[in-house]
Structures are given as structure tokens and as C-alpha cells.
């Protein structure tokens, strides 16, 4: 069997069996060996048991997408094999302990006695180290990087634990080398051309780093998959960086606390998923009428209602776009990579503060949990500009101005007092039912939409300007579209990736003119295609949609685009 350029390794097992630990170790070791790597996870909504898998790709250039194919599959139980069976092809080499499997599968699977080796090293707890060692042996790589990794990881547990892990890794490694020879597994890896000092970042950490850079001061949230990672990222670093982290009693409390903190001058954040965000809708409306800055991260997962809690979808665009009663402005950003997450999180805080509006950052489970590689040069730090003014004794929070944005005072900073109100209010912030003031306040709140459109992040073009067809995508589908286009090598297809999905950039109509427009999104109806139509008047010629709870695989996008616009 021969594999090259693009290797897909998959680890399958039950929750709690450690496949994530194996994948985390391996992806780091491969990166340290100079390979371009990517990893993603799919898992069931349970604490123990079930059937989950992690994919690691070793590619000839940096990638950010899931592939269906599996070259080397390591399964820890029979259920995992069943779970992944549909992805097993002729080229798939499978490793598992035979006594875990049914009779009928044993002939197809290389018997891999992980537990026996672990026991030999001292304890079943060393199984993960055996497994990583075995993979490195099969791949024909050295064991040094992994030994270094184990020394670092287990340093605090003492020399004995480090030594036993080294033993376990060696036993697995020797088995891997032997298996590759005996079973004629001939793997040609892509060239190891990456800087081993590159970063490995998941989407969640990208958002977290962006929030740190932006000077986030308060985060209040209720845990909900897949958005909780951002809360834990900030909680782990809160004390050090002066971020107050409050776990709210519910999402309604979270958004109101974040707005209270924003009123008092902190840059504040909530992180949630669709169902939790549904509870925050009235708070979004409150942000609108009080003109308080707020950043809302929605890690999307498939609905309706509880849906598929641990799976992925881009199904909450319409929710974020329309949540909250009444008319007011908002901004929706949708990073497609960890690097974009870092940059757009900072932008979210900046726009929220400059324009005194709620800003959404839309991600999804696939994007949040996927680990990709990036260089330091891709990490952009935007200028941090606070816009809080010291109040004078005659300060009025909602003073009418030319651009509709009033200088933002906060309580306890200056001689003035600051009154914000969920009712319609006059310039001083007191409730009013005066129709003239109402008319002016509505205009004031909506006036900023023009500037927000001007300042919108333009879509990024991938491929040739002259292509006749444009694949329009947003958020997490950037990587899969880019890779599919690279594979197709068709000058007639290019892509437009939107990392801001509302408001859309004013120059957008021109970009679509004369093109065949194919909109690809990870939802059932084509929510962005509808938005595009509403804003530009341009109907998509074709929609490529997927709402199974899985991300798009590179293979299926290639297949779908082969047919061009017509199919």
C-alpha cells in the first residue's frame, strides 16, 4: 500500500478512552518533526462511552479541512470500527486489538496489543503512549520528539512516570516498525518543510487570544457546547490578565450582566450556542436601545432545540441576524481560521465600542475544535482604542450628534451622571413618550449602519478574478472550499469567503456581476444565500448545502463542484 502527499490518520474509540490525548500528542509531535498537520474531532454527546473519532492529516501544505478518507485507522473498540466503517476504503490500514473485535473483522485488521504493551510498561494507563509510539513506527518517523514531549508532559509526575511512558512508547514504536515491514505498509510522507516552531491553534484558542488582545474585562456565560471552550480559556487566564469570569445562572442573566459591565466601562463578552443565545434575544434588543457595546460569541451546533449538541452546523445565521425586537444596528463576523478568529475577535470589540452596537462572532463546532497550523506572521494585533469619555457635570448619555453616536460616559468617571434606559428615552436617558424625540432616537440608532457598511470586512477572493463561477462561502467552510479548488485546478471556478456576514460590504454587488454564483453553506436552507439575495438582489445559481451535523468533506465539495453550476 502506498500513501503520499496527504495522509489521513484516524483514531476511534469511546469517550474517556483517551483518543483525544493520543491525537493531541501526535499532532504536536508531527508538527515538531516539521510536518504540516491539521486535526479535527467528531464526538457524541456523552461523558463516557459512545463512539468518537479524531482525524489527523499530514499534508503537503497547510490545510484546514476534514477529509473522508482514512489511510491509517486505529480503533480502540468494536463500536468505533462500526462507527467508522463507511469511511474505510481499500487503502485503509486498520489497527486494533483482535480480542476487541468480532471474528469477521479480524482478518482485515492488524492485531495491535496496546494494553499488553502498556501492562508491560507498568500499567494500562500507558496505553496512549503505546499508541502514539506505534503510529510513529508505522510512519517510519523517529521517537525522539515524542520522548521529549513525554518528558515535558510528565515532568511534574517524576522520573519514574516519565521513564515508564518512554518504555511504553518504545514498545509501541517497535511494534509499529515491525508491522509496517510485515504488512508492507509503505508510506511516503509529504516533505517536512514546516518550521517546527509554528503554532498549533484551535478556533476556540484563537478567539480567546483575540479576546485577551482586545482587553476583554468581563465574561459572563452559561456553559453550552460547543461554546464553553472560550469560557474555560478565559477562566484559566482570568486572574493573570484581569478578566472577571462569571458563570451565570442562565443565559438571560449572562447577557444582562455583560451589559451591566459594559455600562460600567468594561469590554464585555458572552459566549453561547444557538439554544442559549435564543434566551439572550431580549438582551440583544437591550444592547440596541441602550447603545451599549457587547460582543456575543455563538458557537453554532445543529438545531432546532437541543438538536445535535456536539455536532456542527452553520444554522444560526438567521437567528443572530434577526434576534431582538425592534430596529437597531448590529454586526456579524464569521472567522474561517484560527488566525481570523484572533483578528476578528479584536475587531468585534473595537466595532462594538466604536459604534455602540452588539457585535456577533459566529463560529461552529468544527471551527472551534479543529486544530490548524499557523506562523507568527499570521497573528495580527490590532490597535486597542478605548472610547470612554470623562463626563462633565452637564453630561447626557444620548446627546444627538452628527453621526448618531454619542460620546460614551460611564458611571463614576467624571462629574456627570450616566443614565441608560430600556425605554425610549430623551438625550438625558430618561424615559419619554414624546413622538418627536422617538423619531430622532430611531434615526440616531440606525444612522450608523451606513458607516458600518463602509467599514465592513470585504470578502476574500480565493483564485482567479476572471473565473466564471464563484463559490460563495462564509465562516468555517473557508478551508474546505480552498482545498477543493486547489484539487480541481479549474481556472473557471474561484471563491469568495465572507468573514463578515452582516452588514455586507458596499462593493459586493460588483463582485458578483456576470458570475455564476454557487453558495456553499453548512445548513439546510442556504441562509447566507438568502441574505445575499436580500441585500444584493442576486439569487444564487446553485446552493450546495449540508445539514447532517458533519462538516463538509473535501471529497464531497470536489465532487459537487466538478458538476459546475448546472448540477
Amino acid at each position, binding site marked *: 500500500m502506498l500513501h503520499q502527499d496527504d495522509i489521513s490518520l484516524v483514531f476511534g474509540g469511546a469517550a474517556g478512552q483517551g483518543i483525544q490525548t493520543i491525537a493531541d500528542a501526535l499532532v504536536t509531535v508531527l508538527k515538531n518533526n516539521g510536518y504540516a498537520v491539521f486535526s479535527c474531532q467528531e464526538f457524541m454527546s456523552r461523558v463516557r462511552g459512545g463512539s468518537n473519532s479524531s482525524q489527523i492529516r499530514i499534508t503537503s501544505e497547510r490545510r484546514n479541512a476534514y477529509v473522508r478518507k482514512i489511510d491509517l485507522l486505529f480503533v480502540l473498540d468494536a463500536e468505533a470500527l462500526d462507527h467508522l466503517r463507511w469511511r474505510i476504503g481499500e487503502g485503509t490500514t486498520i489497527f486494533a486489538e483482535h480480542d476487541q473485535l468480532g471474528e469477521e473483522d479480524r482478518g482485515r485488521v492488524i492485531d495491535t496489543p496496546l494494553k499488553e504493551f502498556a501492562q508491560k510498561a507498568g500499567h494500562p494507563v500507558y496505553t496512549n503512549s503505546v499508541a502514539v509510539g506505534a503510529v510513529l513506527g508505522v510512519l517510519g518517523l523517529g521517537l525522539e520528539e515524542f520522548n521529549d514531549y513525554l518528558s515535558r508532559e510528565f515532568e511534574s509526575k517524576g522520573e519514574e512516570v516519565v521513564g515508564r511512558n518512554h518504555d511504553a512508547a518504545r514498545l509501541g514504536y517497535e511494534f509499529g516498525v515491525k508491522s509496517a515491514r510485515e504488512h508492507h505498509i509503505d508510506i511516503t510522507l509529504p516533505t517536512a518543510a514546516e518550521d517546527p516552531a509554528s503554532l498549533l491553534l484551535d478556533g476556540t484558542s484563537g478567539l480567546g487570544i483575540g479576546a485577551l488582545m482586545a482587553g476583554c474585562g468581563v465574561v*459572563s456565560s452559561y456553559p453550552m457546547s460547543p461554546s464553553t471552550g472560550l469560557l474555560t480559556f478565559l477562566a484559566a487566564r482570568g486572574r*493573570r490578565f484581569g478578566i472577571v469570569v462569571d458563570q451565570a445562572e442562565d443565559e438571560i442573566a449572562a447577557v*444582562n450582566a455583560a451589559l451591566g*459591565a459594559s455600562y460600567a466601562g468594561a469590554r464585555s463578552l458572552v459566549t453561547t450556542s444557538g439554544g442559549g443565545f435564543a434566551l439572550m434575544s431580549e438582551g440583544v434588543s437591550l444592547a440596541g436601545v441602550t447603545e451599549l457595546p457587547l460582543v456575543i460569541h455563538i458557537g453554532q451546533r445543529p438545531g432546532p432545540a437541543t438538536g445535535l449538541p456536539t455536532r456542527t452546523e452553520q444554522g444560526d445565521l438567521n437567528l443572530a441576524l434577526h434576534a431582538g425586537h425592534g430596529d437597531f444596528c448590529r454586526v456579524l463576523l464569521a472567522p474561517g481560521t484560527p488566525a481570523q478568529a484572533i483578528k476578528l475577535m479584536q475587531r468585534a470589540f473595537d466595532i462594538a465600542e466604536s459604534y455602540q452596537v452588539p457585535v456577533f462572532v459566529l463560529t461552529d463546532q468544527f471551527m472551534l475544535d479543529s486544530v490548524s497550523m499557523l506562523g507568527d506572521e499570521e497573528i495580527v494585533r490590532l490597535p486597542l482604542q478605548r472610547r470612554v469619555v470623562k463626563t462633565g457635570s452637564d453630561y447626557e448619555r444620548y446627546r444627538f450628534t452628527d453621526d448618531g453616536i454619542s460620546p460614551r460616559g*460611564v*458611571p463614576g468617571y*467624571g462629574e456627570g*451622571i450616566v443614565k441608560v434606559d430600556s425605554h425610549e428615552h430623551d438625550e438625558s436617558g430618561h*424615559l419619554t413618550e414624546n413622538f418627536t424625540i422617538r423619531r430622532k432616537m430611531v434615526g440616531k440608532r440606525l444612522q450608523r449602519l451606513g458607516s458600518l457598511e463602509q467599514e465592513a470586512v470585504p470578502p476574500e477572493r480565493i483564485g482567479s478574478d476572471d473565473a466564471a463561477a464563484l463559490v460563495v462561502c462564509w465562516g468555517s467552510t473557508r478551508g474546505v472550499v480552498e482545498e477543493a479548488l486547489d484539487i480541481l485546478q479549474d481556472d473557471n471556478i474561484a471563491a469568495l469567503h465572507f468573514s463578515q456576514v452582516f452588514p455586507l460590504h458596499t462593493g459586493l454587488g460588483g463582485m458578483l456581476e456576470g458570475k455564476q454564483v454557487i453558495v456553499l453553506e453548512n445548513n439546510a436552507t442556504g441562509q447566507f444565500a438568502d441574505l445575499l439575495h436580500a441585500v444584493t438582489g442576486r439569487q444564487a445559481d446553485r446552493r450546495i448545502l449540508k445539514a447532517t451535523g458533519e462538516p463538509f468533506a473535501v471529497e464531497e465539495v470536489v465532487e459537487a463542484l466538478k458538476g459546475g453550476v448546472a448540477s
Partner: protein
Amino acid sequence: MKEGKKQTANPFDMPQKKMGWCPGCGNYRILDALKGALHESGIDRRELVIVSGIGQAAKTPQYVNANMFNGLHGRALPAALGVKLARPDLVVVAESGDGCMYGEGGNHFLHAIRRNADITVIVHNNMVYGLTKGQASPTSMVGMTTPVQVEGVMLEPFNPLAVALSLGAPFVARASAGDGDQTKDIFKQALAFKGVSVVDVFQPCVVFNKLNTYKWFSEHTFYLDSSHDVTDRTQAIRISLDSERLALGVLYRHEGRETYEELLGAEPAALGEQRLADDELQEVINSFR
């Protein structure tokens, strides 16, 4: 005391065009007691934030010359918490009615007490929904008929004091709007208390509650005297459970508990352009190599 009566030289007074309350409403007296308490407590109005929800009681900060966050129905407490987390140096009062605090915001009431942030919670308790015109509130008495509860209220009333005490609230008191001086004094104690302080204030609604009138309240209440040991929680709970003779005054106080914002190490939010130091940021980034 007449409605709208000015107290001399109180910085919390506002030149008010129109008040949104009905003539004779208990809210006027609570407003006066609050402004008096704030002034006599020496609080700087620029360092005070009054957070409220929605309802007639929630309009109170509209009539106080101080910082105001008049938020959503039921949500005064989370917003007040947010203010406190961002600016622990400010004095924060959360004020609303029984419908807002005990009904729509009931969950927040429970957890605000558990958190014990330094917030003074004042609840105007008129045992009826005023702004929506006379439906039952969580504290309405069983049997009271309303346009919705046409056969009379069937639900057991919510007992805010017993709930607060059972959750470990360190300061629990009850006042009565009709008694201006006593109410002011209770407010002053609550404002001075470090930690969450809960003050339930009986408030006659002269339009919609014909049952719990000024007269009814004066006949059914009594003030705790010096023989009451305010540090005895069990005794306070016993008193709070008596629905015949309703005690007024401070039922319970327990000094010295650390507040939520202290436990979290919250500092006043940076308002200037304080950038995270490059080396600190680099350390975070390096952890992903």
C-alpha cells in the same frame, strides 16, 4: 408626607417634570425614604448606580439624580452584578417590584443571594401587578380575585424573606412604605452593609390592591424590638414564616462574609488604552507551539 414633597438640599432630588405614579402610591414614600437614606449615608451620587427592571417600582431611578441602568423586566439583578464586577468601587442598588424581582427574575433573585455581591436589593412589594393592571403577583394573598385570577389566587405566596434567609443572605429586612422614617433607617443599614442586602418593602397599591391597604399593613405588621437577636438565623427564619403577624425591621445580619467581587479579585475596569504587555501575550501564544 405628601407625594413629590421636596426635602431640602438633597443632591439626589431631581427637578421633575412629571411623575409616572398614581396619586397616593406607596412608591412616593419609598422614593423619599431612599433619597433620604442615600443623602444621610454620605453617598456621592456620581459613585452610585441604581439598577432597575420594569414595572412602576422600577421607575424609581428615573426620579433620582444619580447614575441609572433601567433595564429589562426581571433583569435588574444580573445587570447590577455586571456593574459591580466591572466597578466594584461603585455603590450599587437594585430596585424593582415584586413581579420583577420574585416573578420574572426569580432565578436571578436566588443566585444573586448565593453570590453575595455587595448590592442593596430593594423590592417594592405591593402584592399585585400594577403596570399590567391588576393581575396576581408572586406575593398576592390566596383568594384575592383579579381579572385573570377570577376565582381568586390559588397559589401559595412567595416568601422572599424565608427564601433569602434559607439561601444564606447575610442581611434581610422588611420595611413598610407607610413608615417613612423607619424605612429610611432600614435602607441606611442596608446601604452600609457589605454584601448582598435584601429589603422587602410593603407598598400599598391604591388602584389595584384593595386588600393590602395602608390600613391593612399597619394592622398586620409590628416592628422587631431590641429583644430580637439579629444574628440568630433560625429565629429570623421562624419570624419570616409567620404570615399572620408580619415583622418589620432587620430580621438578620451576618457581618464579615467575603463578597463575590472580592472572591473573584475584581478590580475597577480599565477605561484607558491599557494594552496587554507584548511579553505576556507572547507567553500565551508560545504555549501553543
